């Protein structure tokens, strides 16, 4: 029944848009004719002040384009549930472009559905696509948000009085380690003796442990906190309540900590999603090879951004942060420039070597840089 309805509405849409297009072309205005139907799927709630909110904001941003129609579903676990949601969006809502945003959706769920629906394009956040191994209608995108973390590290180090920063992280995986390391390198680029104490909570969303970790770091005299967990809300509000400073992650959390929020590393998915929508409306596709299968970018490409500075940031900190940002924008900044030692004293990037952001070896990072107090565990 509903299939029939979708079909009917599809035909009506086609007729309507053909008429519209004819009218527009007749009027001499070249415009995208058919609406681009996009589906967005999140693993948690849309208002988590974190990972999912960043994507939902991207969806809201792309929906402002009149020729984009977006469907959303939140709190979809990485099980058969996400396969069902993708299938429903395709079969019931006529979605042709899917953005299942959680990292764990990719294998096996997206790969399975992509084989079943070769005409639908699947874009996954995480940069996992491998040419020849994965279906042609799958693409992936990811941002070098550690660039924004580097800038946050500068602001944090210059704001800290105790010269001790705290970092609450979910798991010691490459993505997280890279953020911790870039943050620390940023901090030590302006205040060389600053340290970053890291605590791994073990999972992406453990509010109680995150609060305990935040409190114990503050009890030790640490006065700037940051984190890499799904929702930074608990860490940020705990820091504000205890009267210490913080830098945010994923989205802008300044409303949660109007006093102590220094700045933060934010995603700007609107930029990425609008780019994809543009390509698709121009008739480009992954299968035809006219949309690249992997896209990545940092501050320069607008994939991520640094939050506006809070009231406690000094002018010197602002100037140093802006200087670093300018170097990212003109492409001269290299975060991982030798010699870099890990916190066990081993040289991990030899002198004279500079690893650019695109360097593939950075994606399997397994060490913590000198200045970080903590262990990667296993």
């Amino acid at each position, binding site marked *: *029944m509903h*299939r029939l309805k979708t079909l009917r509405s599809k035909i009506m849409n086609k007729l309507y848009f053909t008429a519209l297009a004819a009218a527009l072309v007749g009027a001499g205005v070249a415009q995208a004719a058919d609406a681009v139907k996009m589906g967005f799927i999140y693993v948690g709630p849309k208002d988590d002040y974190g990972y999912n909110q960043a994507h939902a904001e991207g969806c809201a941003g792309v929906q402002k384009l009149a020729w984009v129609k977006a469907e959303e*579903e939140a709190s979809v676990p990485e*099980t058969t549930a996400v396969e069902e949601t993708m299938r429903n969006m395709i079969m019931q809502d006529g979605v042709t472009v899917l953005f299942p945003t959680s*990292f764990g959706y990719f294998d096996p769920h997206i790969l399975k559905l992509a084989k079943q629906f070769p005409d639908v394009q699947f874009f996954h956040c995480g940069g996992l696509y491998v040419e020849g191994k994965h279906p042609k209608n799958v693409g992936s995108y990811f941002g070098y948000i550690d660039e924004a973390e580097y800038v946050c590290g500068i602001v944090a180090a210059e704001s800290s009085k105790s010269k001790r920063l705290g970092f609450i992280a979910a*798991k010691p995986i490459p993505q997280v380690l890279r953020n911790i390391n870039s943050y620390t390198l940023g901090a030590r680029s302006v205040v060389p003796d600053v340290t970053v104490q890291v605590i791994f909570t073990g999972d992406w969303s453990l509010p109680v442990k995150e609060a305990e970790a935040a409190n114990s770091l503050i009890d030790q005299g640490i006065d700037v906190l940051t984190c890499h967990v799904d929702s930074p809300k608990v860490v940020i509000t705990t820091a504000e309540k205890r009267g210490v400073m913080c830098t945010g992650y994923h989205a802008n959390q300044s409303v949660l900590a109007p006093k102590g929020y220094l700045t933060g590393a934010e995603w700007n998915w609107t930029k990425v999603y609008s780019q994809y929508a543009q390509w698709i409306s121009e008739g480009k596709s992954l299968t035809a090879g006219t949309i690249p299968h992997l896209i990545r970018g940092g501050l320069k490409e607008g994939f991520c951004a640094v939050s506006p500075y809070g009231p406690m940031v000094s002018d010197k900190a602002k100037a140093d942060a802006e200087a670093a940002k300018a170097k990212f924008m003109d492409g001269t900044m290299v975060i991982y420039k030798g010699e870099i030692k890990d916190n066990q004293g081993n040289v991990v990037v030899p002198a004279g070597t500079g690893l650019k952001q695109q360097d593939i070896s950075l994606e399997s990072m397994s060490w913590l840089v000198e200045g970080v107090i903590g262990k990667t565990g296993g």
Partner: protein
Amino acid sequence: MNAASNEAAPVAVAPLATDLVSERKPQRHWRGMAEAVVIPAGALLVAMAVFGIFCAFAGANPFGVYGSIRKAAFGSWYSFQNTLVHAAPVMLCALCTAIPLRLGMVIIGNEGALVMGGLGATIAGTHWTSLPPTMALIAMAVAGMVFGGLWIMACGAMKLYRGVNEVISSLLMNYIAIAVLNHLVNGPMRDPTSLNKPSSYPIPDANALGTIPGTFVHWGLVYGVVACLLVWFLMERTTYGFQVRIIGGNIRAARIVGLPVGLITLSACLLAGACAGLAGMVEVAAVQGRANESLAAGYGYAGILVAFVGRANALGVLLVSILLGGILASGGILQRQHHLSDATVLVFQGIVFVAILYSDSLYGRFKIFQERAQA
């Protein structure tokens, strides 16, 4: 009954025996059967009405919402398949609580047993990669059931020999199981190419559990239905089930009449854990293809609810799992068509279950369902 002395034994047996005889009698009668249908159905209607009010406050048209739920859960073969996919793992997990409940034990370690079962299945599936698919699946299923079974049997043993409260021990064992899973997939079992989502090596694609022909429902559903039917037969129609129910009814009396309480407790726990372990095997073999953190997706906790709402009866579990599957399958449409928040489906689930559990206290309260006194 308090003094478990030898001379009390014959006295204790007599009332017990009549209890057991009278236990089945009303169920055969139409009034009892009508009661068993009308009360849960009434509870469901009340729940729908309350949820409708909730939806109206949230800005959606309740009747539109009801229509969408029906459409998304049971409205067509396509949507009913969605319901069944949701129901499959929950069924097996619910048996893990339902079986010990008949023994008078409240086991809530389903999630842990599922995770251990998934781990066992992964170990078997990645170790014997060259077996033909059928043999590999059998090996995985057996490994999953043994791992899950031993996990819950440990709770049973702690209760039996040391008097450890099984509610607490099985709950805490969930966290241990998840920690073991995380440790293994981050360490000894880790596939080094799984960088940002630590996982075990995958089981070969050829050995994966496929879908039932003509559907997109995986074979786990058949495992679940068969397990429910077998457990129902075992519990309701065999001496073993009878013994389990006696222990659940009065453990002292069971000891006095000489039932092997220890053996039955341990074996029932083993069986219960094996069901959840099988659910873990299905998650690995049919869905995830490997062991990682996605195994702990909350099916175990859903199973606890289903077991209680299904009144610890395996057929009840079967029906309630499908009902829950339908509720879960309608979560998406509530978000996409009615723009209700993602938590709405949990509100609905909560209202339905509270209503059904409350309705439990209404049995025997309506005169019309009472058996007439026999002349």
